[in-house]
C-alpha cells in the first residue's frame, strides 16, 4: 500500500506519503499561499523526493471538509481526479477529525475549531484515545456549541489554528475544564489523515463531494424568500 494524503481544507497545506504503516514523508506549511498554485507542485516535488511514481500509488486520502469552500474543493478535485485517473480507491476523512487527531492522547474530549466568522465556527467533538465522534461535525454559533460541551462535564482540548480566535469565549464558558493544544499541534497533518483513512470505506469517486456543512448564501436567501411568500 502506498497512500498519498492531501489536506487543503484551510490555509495550511499538508501532504504526506505512507507505505503500509510507515510514514515516508510529510509536508506541512502554513504560509497562506494559494493552494491552487502550490498543492500540485508540492505533491509532484514530494513524490519525486520519495521516488514514488503516480502509477505506484495504491490509495488516495483526502480531507473532505468542512473548511474554506475553495480550499476543500481544490484538495478534493485533485484527490478525486487522481484516484479516478489511476483507478485506485479514494478515502475521505472529516477535516475536523484530522485536526482532532493532533490531540489523540488527551484524556477527555477534543474539540477542533475552524472559525467561520460572525461568532460561528465549523466544529465537532471527538473522544480522546479512540477519536470516536462525540458530537457530529457542524456549522454552529460557537458560544452555543461551547454550552453543549460544558454540559458534558469533561475536560476539553481545543485544537486548530482558529481556537485562538475564540479563546476568550472558551475560557469564559469552559473555565478550567478548557485546555489548548500547543502551537506545533494546531496544524492539520496529512499523516494523521492517512492513518484515519485506513479505517474508512472507499468512496465512489464520481460521487465524492466536499462536506461543506453549510448551504450557500444564495440558497439560504432563496429559502428565506420562499418562506416569506408562503406566510
Amino acid at each position, binding site marked *: 500500500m502506498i497512500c498519498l494524503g492531501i489536506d487543503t481544507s484551510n490555509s495550511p497545506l499538508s501532504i504526506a506519503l505512507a507505505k503500509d504503516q510507515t510514514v515516508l514523508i510529510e509536508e506541512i506549511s502554513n504560509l497562506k499561499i494559494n493552494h491552487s498554485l502550490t498543492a500540485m507542485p508540492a505533491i509532484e516535488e514530494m513524490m519525486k523526493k520519495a521516488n514514488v511514481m*503516480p502509477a505506484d500509488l495504491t490509495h488516495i486520502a483526502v480531507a473532505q471538509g468542512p473548511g474554506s469552500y475553495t480550499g476543500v474543493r481544490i484538495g478534493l478535485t485533485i484527490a478525486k481526479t487522481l484516484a479516478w485517473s489511476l483507478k485506485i480507491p479514494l478515502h475521505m476523512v472529516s477535516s475536523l477529525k484530522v485536526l482532532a487527531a493532533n490531540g489523540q492522547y488527551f484524556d477527555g474530549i477534543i474539540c477542533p475549531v475552524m472559525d467561520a466568522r460572525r461568532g460561528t465556527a465549523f466544529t465537532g467533538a471527538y473522544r480522546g484515545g479512540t477519536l470516536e465522534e462525540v458530537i457530529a461535525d457542524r456549522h454552529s454559533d460557537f458560544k452555543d456549541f461551547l454550552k453543549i460541551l460544558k454540559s458534558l462535564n469533561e475536560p476539553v482540548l481545543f485544537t486548530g489554528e482558529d481556537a485562538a480566535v475564540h479563546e476568550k469565549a472558551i475560557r469564559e464558558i469552559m473555565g478550567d475544564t478548557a485546555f489548548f493544544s500547543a502551537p506545533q499541534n494546531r496544524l492539520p497533518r496529512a499523516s494523521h489523515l492517512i492513518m484515519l483513512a485506513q479505517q474508512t470505506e472507499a468512496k465512489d469517486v464520481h460521487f465524492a463531494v466536499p462536506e461543506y456543512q453549510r448551504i450557500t448564501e444564495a440558497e439560504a436567501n432563496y429559502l428565506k424568500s420562499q418562506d416569506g411568500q408562503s406566510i
Partner: protein
Amino acid sequence: MNKDRYVLGIETSCDETAASIVKNGTEIVANVVASQIESHKRFGGVVPEIASRHHVEQITIVIEEALKQAEMVPEQLHAVAVTEGPGLVGALLVGVNAAKAFAFAHQLPLIGVHHIAGHIYANRLEQEMQFPLLALVISGGHTELIYMKEHGSFEVIGETRDDAAGEAYDKVARTLNLPYPGGPHIDRLAHTSSNPVPFPRVWLEEDTYDFSFSGLKSAVLNYMHNATQRGEEVLPEDVAAGFQNSVVEVVTGKTLRAAEEYKVQQVIAAGGVAANKGLRNSLEKEFKKLGIPFYIPSLPLCTDNAAMIAAAGSVMFEKGIRSNMAMNGRPGMEMSSWI
C-alpha cells in the same frame, strides 16, 4: 507510425462543466457538456459558489464520458488543455486542478488556454481558418473584435467598455420578465414585433471599435419606467425588437468596418450571442454583400464547450507551448499571442 494527435480539453470557466477530445485540432472525437442552467435559473443568473460546487460533482464524470465516447484510454492522448482564464475564479480552479491531476497521473503535457482563444478556434472544428482573419467574440461575458495575422497571433482591436452584449440581453430580459437566460427569448420576441421602439445606437468615437451597452440598457429601463408612469401599455416585443435592432446594427456596423480596414480574408463569429438569429442574419447578409467569407459555428460550438479549448490547445501543443503544475486559474487573464 500514426501521426494523429489527440488532445483532451477541459472547460469550467462559468456554468458548464465540459470535457472533449479533439483530433489534430480540427476533428471532434468526443464532446461532453454538463450544463447547470437549471440550477441557476431560480436565482436569475449564475451564482459563483453554486457553479463551483457543481463543477466538483461533475468533473470526473464528464472526463470519463468523453473518453468513453471516444473509445479511448488516457494513454492514447498527447496532451491536456484546460481553460486557464478568464472566468469565475472558483469555477476555473476546479478545471485547472483536475487537469493538473490528470496530466500528472498520466505524465502528459499540460496546456493552459485562454477562453476567448478557445471560442475563436471553435470555428476550426468546422471550417479551416484563413488569415488575416477578424473574429467577433460575443457572449454573456465578452464582446470583442480580434484581429489575427496568423495562428496564435491575437490583437484585440475593440472591446466593451462596460457590459458584455450578453449581460445587456439578460438585464433587458429581466425587466421584460422573461426567464433566465434571456437572450434567446428576446431574439424570439423581436421577430414578432411590427413596431420596434427606436432606441439610440451607441457608436462611441468615430474611429473606435470599442462597444458600450450600458447606455442602451439604461435607455430601455427609462422607457419602461416612463411608460408605466404614464399608464401606457408596453408591448414587450416592441421593446425586445428595438433593443435587439440597436445591438445588431452597431455590432454589424463595427465588424464590417474593421473587416474592410484590416483587409481580412475571413470573418468568424463566436460566443453564445453569436447564435442570436437577428445578429446572425444581419452579419451574413452584410458580409455577403461585401464579398468577405463569414462563418459562425453551429450552436453547440458557439456556447461554452471543451472542444474549443482542445482545438486551441492543439495548436498551442504543436507550437511547443506548455504549462506546469504551478498553473493557476486566472479570472482576469489577458489575451496574449503564442508567438
